[in-house]
């Protein structure tokens, strides 16, 4: 197990190094001239050259990368070219707000999604199952930004219960804070529930039809024991992996949701930095998202191993 964890950790580090190269490569190598992007098309060649020198853009690319990556490790994420302030603190603030949003949504998605999936599987082929299936079909088909707009139209414009957008810190009062969280959370949960519940359903159905469940029935065990003790454990194994994947999708989802609800988190920061050609911020933000995603995956792998004796105890040679 220890060897397994070490191996997985090493892999996460490797992936992050590769992602950092990718992010840096795409943002630095592709554009004709970053200085131009920053200064706009009216800049004189002298201005451009001066900025290039200031940013170290005349150095060989690998030096630029090492400088950037080195800064990243020591906590110096560079300076936002737009705001003229360090990226680090700005990013930290955004991460906190985004994790608040995604964290609450994730817990809801996991609980409701797994619950719905199991309920549908145990009523396989009956009205409840069909109802849940249709609902999840909608969940998969509806684009997140459209959900967001429907939520705004219904709860903000029509009912007037919730603010249409924005964010209030918790210091402004818990209700104020919560009110601004409800709409985006609702939207994220709607959009991501389907995936988890569909997978849980199919995995549970597959397990319930497996020979060892028939064998458990042949032992005359009560149905409750069969579901809780025999089936759930095996059925939820693939769900763990999918939940991690969904956490990554959530991190993608916030890009759209935060933009629609004008929620000042990581996703909005990414869009904002793209729109304003703020490359240092963009690079740092995407790398952070990749790191969060990789860690979520690592956690899922470890949980998976924890609950799967085949991995926990290596494999049999026979």
């Amino acid at each position, binding site marked *: 197990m220890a060897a397994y964890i070490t191996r997985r950790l090493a892999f996460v580090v490797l992936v992050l190094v590769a992602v950092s190269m990718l992010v840096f490569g795409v943002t630095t190598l592709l554009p004709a001239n970053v200085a131009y992007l920053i200064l706009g098309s009216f800049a004189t060649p002298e201005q451009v050259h001066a900025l290039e020198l200031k940013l170290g853009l005349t150095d060989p690319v690998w030096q630029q990368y090492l400088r950037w990556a080195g800064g990243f490790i020591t906590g110096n994420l560079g300076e936002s070219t737009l705001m003229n302030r360090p990226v680090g603190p700005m990013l930290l603030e955004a991460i906190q707000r985004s994790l608040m949003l995604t964290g609450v949504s994730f817990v809801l998605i996991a609980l409701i999604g797994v619950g719905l999936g199991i309920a549908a599987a145990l009523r396989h082929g009956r009205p409840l199952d069909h109802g849940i299936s249709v609902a999840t079909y909608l969940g998969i088909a509806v684009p997140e930004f459209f959900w967001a707009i429907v939520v705004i139209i219904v709860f903000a414009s029509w009912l007037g219960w919730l603010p249409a957008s924005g964010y209030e810190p918790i210091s402004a009062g818990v209700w104020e804070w919560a009110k601004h969280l409800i709409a985006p959370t609702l939207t994220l949960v709607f959009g991501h529930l389907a995936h988890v519940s569909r997978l849980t359903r199919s995995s549970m159905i597959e397990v319930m039809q497996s*020979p060892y469940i*028939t064998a458990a029935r*042949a032992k005359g065990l009560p149905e409750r024991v069969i579901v809780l*003790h025999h089936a759930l454990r095996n059925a939820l194994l693939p769900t763990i992996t999918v939940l991690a994947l969904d956490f990554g999708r959530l991190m993608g989802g916030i890009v759209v949701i935060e933009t629609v609800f004008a929620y000042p988190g990581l996703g909005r920061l990414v869009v904002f930095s793209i729109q304003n050609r703020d490359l240092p911020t963009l690079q740092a933000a995407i790398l952070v998202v990749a790191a969060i995603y990789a860690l979520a995956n690592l956690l899922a792998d470890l949980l998976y191993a924890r609950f799967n004796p085949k991995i926990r105890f290596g*494999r*049999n040679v026979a």
Partner: protein
Amino acid sequence: MLAIDDLTVRYRTAGGEIEALSSVSLKARKGSTLALVGESGSGKSTIALAAMGLLPAEAMVPSGRILFDGADILTMNAEARRQLRGSRIGLVFQDPFSVLNPSLRIGDQVGEGLVHHRGYTPERAFARAIELLDEVGIVKPEAVAKAYPHELSGGMRQRALIAGALASEPELLILDEPTTALDVTIEAQILDLLEDLRVRRGLTMVFISHNLGVVRRIADEVAVLYAGQIVEQGATEEVLQRPVHPYTKGLLAAIPRIGRRMGRLAAIPGRLPDLRNPPTGCRFAPRCPFATPDSTNPQRLLAVGDRMVRCSSAAALRDTSWPVQEEAVVAATADRSASEPVVEVEDLTKSFVLSRGALRWEGWRPVRDAVSITPVDAISLTVAPGEVVGLVGESGSGKTTLGRTILRLIEADSGLIRIAGETVSDKPQSALEAMRRTAQIVFQNPDSSLNPRKTIRELLGRPIARFGLSPKADIPKRVDELLDLVRLPAHYADRYAHQMSGGEKQRVGIARALATQPNFIVCDEPVSALDVSVQAAIVNLLADLRDRLGVAYLFISHDISVVAHLADRVAVMHHGKMVEIGPAEQIMNAPSHPYTIKLLSAVPRVDGPALARREVVAADGLA
């Protein structure tokens, strides 16, 4: 103890309703073993599920009663049925690899019946599970109880399953092909264990199997099923030695016997009737050489002596045997030693590294070292033109690897391979053109060996085109010839693999191997996936082709009796080594290596000295 009365079961499927069982009546007497025998599609497993009240949702029971101690399992409420299951009736399934829950410890799974039926605490149940594991002959019961299923070999898992079924001391044990997935030596151990338990605990057993040899070893009484009906029922020895129903006669005649060489096996022509719309008359009539005009009328079970037979001509057929066609096989058995061998293998070795030194578990002990296996360990072998060399061994003995290494489908580590006088072991793959034409292969699994997206014409035409053996215009004609050679009608050329039965697919596989006009074919378990009656036909076909075309085979099989029937010489493999090789007669009648002796003694036979039930075969539990 258990009485099934007029049971009919139908399954709803996409293609229509299938009648899996038609009015089946059975009785299992207390303390005895009743065997249910039949090929695939006979409905034997449905009986087990019905008796446990575990029929799937698509099943319907339009008629019948299943009485256990006087109470009808079919009509009692679900809770009462659950109380019965596992507590008074135990069930052991066929495949020990999938019926154990992968994420629960063995001890928990063995003991859990006690928790729910006898009110044991989980701890007490676990302790009892260890005793039970000990009782079924597991060597280190404490350690095994704490292990997870994937850490155990097939034989150990089957023992654990039996222990679990015995936990609440049931009166009736239903076993559905409990040894089919196991090697013969392990099978023999399990059969001994079951017999032992029956005697010690006074168990009643219902034993379901397709293997008449196994049945003979374990059962007092046998019921033969065909297409959902019982066709013959009586005392085991009686039925197996003097079968009355034509189907039973055919089934027994199709089994190759060790130590009795026959020219050809008896095969049963035709196939199962369509159970969506079963014939009203005798269901076996279309395949029956004794069919009379009366066969089209509904057939009832008639008493013939002490037994019941579903055939109106039963009395007349009592002493008639299944017609065996003795094709004189004096042909091509020319002096083989004189000619140069078609295959020569010297010191062939192949090993695989299984793990590069990471942590692994051997059984339940942690081991940390590089693990490699040598499935082909310094093997030397020759095959003469037109000769059949049989290669037997249990799973993991390396026989398949040897066959593929000779053909260089797997690259050997060292050793010499000569095929048709050409040394092929030192050539690059690109220079093997000639060898690939001379040496071909037939595979085990007819579902996997034919590309499902190609018609038979494409499948058979490709090798001919690939080696330019005929001008393009002549290829269709050549394909027809090949189909004729394996006795398939010409219109099969336009079919796809999924439109044929297993036996037909295997014929196409053989035709494909023959398409390049090879001198040598590796037959890798070509009949293991087939029912006995179909197996006989394929074995006969292979024998005919050898006689007609003079092609030599390396015939690989785990089934010694098939090998004994077909092979001129037999080689026995064990753990990658060839432990014995010699003329078939000699190996079968006077084996010299202890492993060969053990292997032969473990084979369940339908003839020979009656019921050597207590034979003990040395155990080697962990695989």
